[in-house]
C-alpha cells in the first residue's frame, strides 16, 4: 500500500500556505496530523496532486484564553489538549472527550483542526464544538471568516469551508459557573469510532434551576446533531430524572441514523436515547456539585 505520487510542499507561514492553496486549487490537500488523510492516501481513496504540509506552522499551534473563550489553534495536537490544565479547568467537556479519540499514538499526532476539518460525523470533536456553540475561524488569501459550528458541518465529511480556505482556529465559550458537562459514547471496541456519542452540558442558577442545557450527538446523522428541543425542555426546572428520561426519548425519536455493518438504525436510536439520559444526569450532578462547592 503506497500513496500515489504527489508534490510535497511545506510552507513556513500561514500566508504562504493560503497562497499555495489558492494557486494550486482543488488538486491540493492540506496535511495536518495525517491520521485520517494518510490512511485514505495509503488506500489511494484520495490521490491529491499536491500535499500542503501544515506541520511547520507553529503559529497554528497553541491553546489560549481570550475574553471568555478558549482559543485553540488548528495544528494543536489532540494530546496537548488532553493534557492541558487550562482545558480541563475552562472547558471540561472537551477534556472529557479527548481521551475517547482513537488511541494515544493517534492523539500524539492528530490535531484539533484536522479532526474538525475532516468532519467525520462519528468523531468526538465536531460534537463537542457543536454542543458548546463554538466558532470555527477559516482564512484564505481573501480574508478571514467566522463560522458557527452548526453552519460549519454541512454533511458527511463536508464543511462550509470553501476552496482555498483553511481552518486556522476554533473558539469555544468557556464553561460558565454552576455548569456540569459529560461526554459518553458506545463503541464496539475501545478506541474505535463510536457507534453513538453524546455531549451534554447543564447550567443551573443559584436556586438549582436549569438555565441552559445543550445536547449534541455523534454517529446518528451526516453531521453532529444538536438536539435543541430536547435541551430547551430542561430549562426552567430543577434537573430531575424524569426530565432526563423525556429528553432521551425525544432524542431517540427525532434522530434518523443509518444502519451499517456495525449497528442497525434502531439500535443507534435506542443508544442515543440512553446515552442522552445518562449524559444529562451526569452533567446535572456535576453542575449541582459545583453549586454546593461554591456555597
Amino acid at each position, binding site marked *: *500500500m*503506497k*500513496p*500515489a*505520487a*504527489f*508534490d*510535497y*510542499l*511545506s510552507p513556513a507561514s500561514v500566508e504562504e500556505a493560503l497562497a499555495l492553496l489558492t494557486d494550486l486549487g482543488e488538486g491540493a490537500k492540506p496535511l495536518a496530523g*495525517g*491520521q485520517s488523510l*494518510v*490512511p485514505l*492516501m*495509503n*488506500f489511494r481513496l484520495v490521490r491529491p496532486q499536491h*500535499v500542503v*504540509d501544515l*506541520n511547520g506552522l507553529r503559529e497554528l499551534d497553541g491553546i489560549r484564553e481570550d475574553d471568555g473563550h478558549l482559543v485553540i489553534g488548528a495544528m494543536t495536537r489532540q*494530546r496537548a489538549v488532553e493534557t492541558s490544565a487550562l482545558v480541563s479547568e475552562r472547558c471540561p467537556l472537551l477534556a472529557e472527550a479527548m481521551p475517547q479519540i*482513537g*488511541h*494515544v*499514538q*493517534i492523539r*500524539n*499526532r492528530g490535531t484539533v483542526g484536522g479532526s474538525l476539518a475532516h468532519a467525520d460525523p462519528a468523531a468526538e470533536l465536531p460534537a463537542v464544538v457543536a454542543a458548546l456553540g463554538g466558532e470555527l475561524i477559516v482564512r484564505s488569501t481573501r480574508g478571514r471568516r467566522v463560522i458557527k459550528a452548526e453552519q460549519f458541518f454541512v454533511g458527511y465529511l463536508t464543511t462550509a469551508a470553501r476552496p482555498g480556505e483553511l481552518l486556522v482556529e476554533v473558539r469555544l465559550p468557556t464553561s460558565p459557573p454552576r455548569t456540569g458537562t459529560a461526554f459518553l459514547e458506545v463503541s464496539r471496541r*475501545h*478506541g474505535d469510532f463510536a457507534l453513538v456519542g453524546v455531549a451534554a452540558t447543564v447550567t443551573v442558577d443559584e436556586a438549582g434551576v436549569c438555565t441552559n442545557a445543550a445536547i449534541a450527538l455523534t454517529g446518528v446523522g451526516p453531521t453532529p446533531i444538536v438536539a435543541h428541543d430536547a435541551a430547551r425542555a430542561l430549562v426552567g426546572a430543577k434537573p430531575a430524572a424524569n426530565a432526563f428520561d423525556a429528553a432521551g426519548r425525544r432524542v431517540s425519536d427525532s434522530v434518523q441514523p443509518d444502519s451499517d455493518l456495525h449497528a442497525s438504525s434502531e439500535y443507534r436510536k435506542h443508544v442515543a436515547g440512553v446515552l442522552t439520559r445518562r449524559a444529562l444526569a451526569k452533567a446535572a450532578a456535576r453542575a449541582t456539585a459545583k453549586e454546593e462547592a461554591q456555597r
Partner: protein
Amino acid sequence: MNERPIRVTVNGRAYERTVEARKTLADFLREDLELTGTHLGCEHGVCGACTIILDGAAVRSCLMFAVQVHGSEIQTVEGLADGDRLNPLQEAFREHHGLQCGFCTPGFLMTLTCFLRECPNPTEAQVREAIAGNLCRCTGYQNIVIAALAAAQTLAASPQGS
C-alpha cells in the same frame, strides 16, 4: 518536487537521505535505513505494529511521510537493547512470555517505552489503556500487561537501568 533531501537522527545516529515524498516513514526506516525491526501490519493506523518514538512521542510511522521527519529525532526498537543485552522492558517481555510470534512486539515495546517514561508507576488499568492501540493476536495481552508492570518495578529499582 517529488524528492527531498532529509536529515534525521535515528537511535542516536544521524542519517542523510533523499526520499520520495510519498514514502511513508515506516517504509523509509525499513527500506532506506534497513531498520526492519519496525513492522508494518495494517498500514492505516489501526494495529500499532509500526509505532516508533518521534521527538519523545509514540506515533504510527505508517501515517507519516519520511519527508516530514527532517530535523527530528526518532527511536525505534533497534535502539532499545545495548548490543546483545536486552533492556529491562525487553527482558520483562522475555521473562513473562509477553510475546509469541513477535510480530506486534516492536510496536508494544515502543508504546510502553514512551508510556513508562510518562507514568513510571502504573496500575494495571493504566497499562491496559496505554496498549489499547496495539493489537496482538497471540498472547491475549495478559502476559504483556504482566511484563509491563514487571518492567516498571525493575525500572523503579534502578532508575538508570533504561
